[in-house]
């Protein structure tokens, strides 16, 4: 097992950030760690990288406990902290060299490794620039490159794609997918598509408790047994008022995607498609699309974390 967590609890003062969490991640797995803000994702990662000790319970990385062998654990782990902190007054190659040196790489290996990650992350042109002068996307690459400089067995990434534009998100995801071939990856996110795009397995936590530990496929099925919500996509040719759609019985929430296109969140008890159709006829709207979406992970996420029907 690459990461083995048993009954992990962490409290800050009186507040329980993690409450008796257990899971394990096998070698070579790529696992998404999901939860609303403040659920305990970062805390778990900080414990796994020996920044914080657990209050009780244990966490082992490659068979070594974080409290017993903190330095050995840190050698096996590549870590990208949340918000990707960097020394802005250092040059890219200088920074990678520094991190490599801290990890005890010898001169020759260090040089090779810096070259390897610089090439892997497309930083060849940028390596002689100050980190402070780089765009956010490139900084994120530097952050990832830094996490990989010592060729760790386990990669822990805390929100690796937050704050990036869609193109950069795709790039970073591809890079993560690329490195995940040889490594165990645990990454946190609150974007559902990311989980669908990247991994086989999802851990969902909420309020410090583990609410789901399943493969992406399982998650859909399980939730399909007793779904409380369904989402309906509906498009009209003419302009339609969002408020009017909300009046349709059974519709809980309406989000407008484009001018005439809406995503309705409805309770699962009645099929609102019929009602939508009647409403359209009655109001003389031209209906051009009406489909029930297969359960998106978003809906499942909302259900599991008890935030049903609300946007966060």
């Amino acid at each position, binding site marked *: 097992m690459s990461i083995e967590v048993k009954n992990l609890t962490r409290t800050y003062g009186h507040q329980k950030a993690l409450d008796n969490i257990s899971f394990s991640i096998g070698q070579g797995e790529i696992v998404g760690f999901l939860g609303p803000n403040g659920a305990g994702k970062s805390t778990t990662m900080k414990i796994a990288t020996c920044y914080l000790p657990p209050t009780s319970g244990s966490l082992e990385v490659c068979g070594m406990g974080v409290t017993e062998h903190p330095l050995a654990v840190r050698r096996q782990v590549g870590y990208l902290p949340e918000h990707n*902190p960097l020394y802005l007054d250092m040059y890219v190659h200088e920074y990678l060299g520094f991190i490599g040196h801290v*990890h005890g790489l010898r001169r020759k290996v260090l040089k090779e490794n810096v070259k390897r990650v610089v090439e892997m992350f497309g930083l060849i042109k940028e390596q002689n620039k100050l980190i402070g002068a780089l765009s956010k996307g490139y900084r994120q690459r530097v952050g990832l490159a830094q996490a990989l400089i010592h060729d760790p067995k386990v990669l822990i990434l805390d929100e690796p794609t937050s704050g990036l534009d869609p193109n950069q998100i795709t790039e970073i995801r591809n890079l993560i997918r690329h490195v995940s071939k040889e490594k165990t990856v645990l990454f946190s996110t609150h974007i559902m598509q990311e989980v669908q795009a990247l991994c086989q397995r999802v851990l969902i936590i909420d309020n410090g408790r583990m609410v789901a530990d399943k493969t992406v496929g399982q998650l859909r099925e399980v939730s399909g047994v007793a779904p409380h919500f369904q989402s309906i996509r509906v498009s009209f040719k003419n302009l339609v008022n969002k408020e009017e759609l909300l009046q349709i019985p059974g519709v809980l929430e309406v989000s407008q995607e484009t001018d005439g296109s809406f995503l309705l969140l409805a309770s699962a008890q009645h099929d609102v498609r019929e009602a939508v159709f009647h409403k359209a006829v009655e109001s003389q709207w031209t209906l051009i699309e009406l489909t029930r979406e297969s359960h998106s992970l978003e809906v499942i996420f909302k259900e599991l974390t008890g935030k049903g029907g609300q946007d966060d």
Partner: protein
Amino acid sequence: MISVFRKEVASFLNSLIAYIVISVFLTGIGLLMWVFPETSILDYGYADMETLFGVAPYVFMFLIPAICMKFFAEEKKSGTMELLFTRPLTDMQIILGKYFAGLFLVIFSLLPTVIYYYSVYELGNPKGNLDSAGIMGSYVGLLLLGSFFTSLGVLASSVTENQIVAFILGAFLCFISYDGIDALASLEAIGPLGHTIERLGVVYHYNALSRGLMDSRDLWYFLSITTATLLLTRLVIGSRRW
């Protein structure tokens, strides 16, 4: 530890801080020693370097906290603390790396004043008529004082994420440990205890070394208070775990 040391020294030399610190220190000391009539050696008429060793502690009181203020405060503010403290380094290695980088800069700024020794040596009448042993002792004392002030600066930087707070706190700690205890000892209300309190202060041991008398008690004094301060820093840094 070496990598942290190298990084900190490089970041000093790449930024303006090191150059400003060194030039301010040397200009100030140079003016006091050779130009200002009140303190100038040329007007004073005696071939000694009392001016340097009398003024340097006060200059250190401001310069050393200025060097050290960013050590942990900046890392905390920018979040790089987490980056550094999740690498295979113990807390003490990181603290020592930064501490020695600060001390290196202090020594580096003190080195050019050795030229003053040569000047005073040449100016003496007869030539070379000065208390070399005393000056040696004073340098050792100044170095030890510098290393203690550096540890206070590191401590001040570890308690806050605001560099200005770190600077003011550092300067205050240096001042209290240097002058404060001495002043306390001379209070009349303290009475006969004064002498004991005076011995706890930095000035007492600094002056003892300045006389050129290398007493192991003074050396141990400086080594122990510096070590104690660094251990206290480790306690502060480790407090994130509680």
